[in-house]
């Protein structure tokens, strides 16, 4: 039996196709239950997000299993397989496991390192578990994927750096002002990115927002939205003395703030720092202001450079994360290959034999008065005891092992857990 994975994502399929194959929250439960009872599949899980649709399943016959999943998708979505087959990737065995671990660790995301994907996978897993579509193998596989993702997040800097302009601006503001509580923002003009930056600042506990706009009505509407105050455009200099982070995004052809204006304000501010984020093109803020003490000016290009560099860093971290994923794949493979009748019986025998030998060794020194022959008889006696004790469990495993599918794996898994055959820490799931 093996793990297989079929799916498409933002790299292989355009959004037009992805939305055709996406499953809503209502469909997903029914679909995953149906999938898991589609032969030759014995377990299944369906992950559907805006960037990917993926089916992970367990089957005795990978080739037939992959075909079954593809047919299922076509049937379910009323599409001809030929319409979307080219966008599908199909993995079996270690490749499927590796792909899943990479997705969970956010290495396959559109924005590498974004944290939402893990929550989405957990949600899909919960659904599959509720529908009893996942069994011994997928339970193990997905719990492993959660711990791999956790390790990647903890041991690499994959999620550390801001990779959007507005986040980068907030990160910078924090490096200047520390905790943003007690600082105020001033938004000059309007625009999607500028408003996003203000929202991020508010979420990071900035204490208030002032909005300045050429049209006062617009300013008041924005101020309303952010719970701040509106000022007229010619009151900007005054607002500067009360603000700390200035986000400027006007369509003005020339400069909105000049060096001399800011220099005058600095005296009144007792040199408390000012951070200018100039998102406008052409620029609103005189770049010379950056030369003033305690003034920092970042324009669109500066922020884009920061984001670019952070993306590169994330890629480097993703490379390191690849090693953690490989380790996870290896460990899962070891567990899976142990989950069969012969290795389980062998592991069971080895475990009891080890106990027997260890106990014999401990007892021998106290039995110095016994002859060679007596000791040999004692040794034989313990062997026989062990074999007799093992006879029924082994018969049970062989019988159950004759079944195919879930019942067999459950019996094997329970035996392995009961006798702790996978070593400590491997059974907590």
């Amino acid at each position, binding site marked *: 039996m093996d793990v297989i994975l079929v799916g498409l994502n933002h790299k292989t399929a355009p959004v037009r196709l992805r939305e055709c194959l996406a499953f809503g929250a209502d469909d997903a439960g029914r679909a995953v239950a149906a999938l898991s009872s589609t032969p030759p599949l014995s377990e299944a899980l369906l992950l559907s997000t805006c960037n990917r649709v993926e089916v992970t399943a367990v089957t005795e016959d990978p080739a037939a299993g992959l075909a079954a999943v593809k047919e299922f998708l076509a049937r379910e979505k009323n599409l001809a397989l030929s319409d979307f087959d080219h966008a599908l990737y199909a993995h079996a065995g270690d490749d499927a496991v590796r792909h899943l671990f990479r997705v969970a660790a956010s290495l396959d995301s559109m924005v590498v390192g974004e944290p939402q994907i893990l929550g989405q996978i957990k949600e899909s897993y919960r659904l599959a578990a509720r529908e009893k579509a996942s069994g011994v193998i997928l339970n193990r596989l997905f719990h492993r994927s959660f711990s791999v993702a956790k390790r990647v997040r903890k041991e690499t*800097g994959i999620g550390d750096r801001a990779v959007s302009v507005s986040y980068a601006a907030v990160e910078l503001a924090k*490096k200047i*002002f*520390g*905790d943003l509580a007690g600082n105020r923002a001033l938004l000059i003009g309007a625009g999607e990115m500028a408003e996003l930056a203000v929202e991020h600042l508010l979420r990071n506990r900035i204490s208030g927002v002032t909005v300045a706009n050429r049209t006062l009505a617009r300013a008041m509407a924005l101020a309303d939205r952010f719970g701040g105050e509106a000022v007229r455009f010619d009151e900007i200099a005054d607002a500067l003395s009360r603000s700390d982070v200035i986000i400027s995004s006007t369509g003005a052809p020339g400069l909105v703030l000049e060096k001399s204006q800011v220099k005058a304000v600095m005296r009144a501010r*007792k*040199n408390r720092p000012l951070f200018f984020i100039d998102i406008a093109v052409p620029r609103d803020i005189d770049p010379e202001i*950056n030369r003033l003490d305690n003034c920092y000016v970042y324009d669109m290009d500066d922020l884009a450079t920061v984001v670019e560099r952070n993306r590169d860093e994330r890629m480097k971290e993703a490379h390191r994360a690849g090693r953690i994923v490989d380790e996870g794949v290896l460990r899962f493979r070891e567990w899976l290959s142990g989950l069969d009748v012969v290795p389980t019986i062998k592991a069971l025998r080895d475990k009891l034999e080890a106990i027997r030998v260890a106990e014999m060794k401990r007892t021998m020194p106290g039995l110095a008065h016994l002859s060679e022959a007596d000791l040999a008889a004692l040794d034989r006696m313990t062997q026989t005891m062990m074999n007799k004790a093992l006879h029924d469990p082994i018969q049970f495993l062989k019988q159950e092992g004759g079944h195919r599918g879930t019942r067999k794996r459950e019996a094997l898994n329970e035996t392995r857990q009961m006798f702790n055959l996978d070593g400590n820490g491997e059974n907590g799931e």
Partner: protein
Amino acid sequence: MDWLLKLSFLGYLAGSAGFAAYFATNRQAVFRAGQGLFGAGAALHTAFVLWAWAGAGYPPVNGLKETLFFAAWAMALAFELVDLRYGLRVLGVVAGPAVIALMAAGFLVPGTAPADPQLLGGVWMLTHVMSLFFGYAALFLAAGAGALYLLQERSIKRKSHGFFFRRLPSLDNLDRMNHGCLAVGFTLLTLGLITGAVYAQAVWVRWWSWDPKEVWSAITWLTYAALLHERLAVGWRGRRAAVLSILGLVLILFTFLGVNLLLEGHHGPFTRI
């Protein structure tokens, strides 16, 4: 009891290695290990100082060797206090090496015969010595925070978000710590100078004798007074405050060591090699 001193030196070394490793790797656990080891070193050193103090009846600041050890102890304690107050972890990479350098210098410098206990006894002398050593340590940490501020400001102004940008705390945090250490350090410095004058009046029957140490101390005090005044009145913060607190440290180093080693004066006996 020399072993106690050596053991604390080992604690400082291991702790500082931990701080450096934390700076390189950014891992919390590494910092905590360093913090524990450094703290253990400081605790052992405190035990040593108390033991020496109890034995002699006056603080162990007799001769350059003891003075260096004492300064290292003051620095280590000051760092522990600042760490408690501000939780500024990166400061370990500044304070740790300073403590180690002072300790190492202490081990290298030969010891001296005990001075006249009459000279070192008394409450004025005690206050003079304690407030100056802890004042110097605080002002050193102010300069350290200033230096880190300059590094961080540079990376923000130049938009080169490299090694230091990620590891150093915010400008606001560094500036506040610079301010706090300056205020405490200046207060102690003032107290130290006043008690020194009172002591001089008691021993030499003169408040002020234009001794080189006195003159340089006055210059140092004026520099810090100017800096603190500008900070409070005009709002000198950030870069200028950082630069001036580093300049102040240079003056302290000269007053503390340079004057004793290069110029003559009545502090000679206490820092004699």
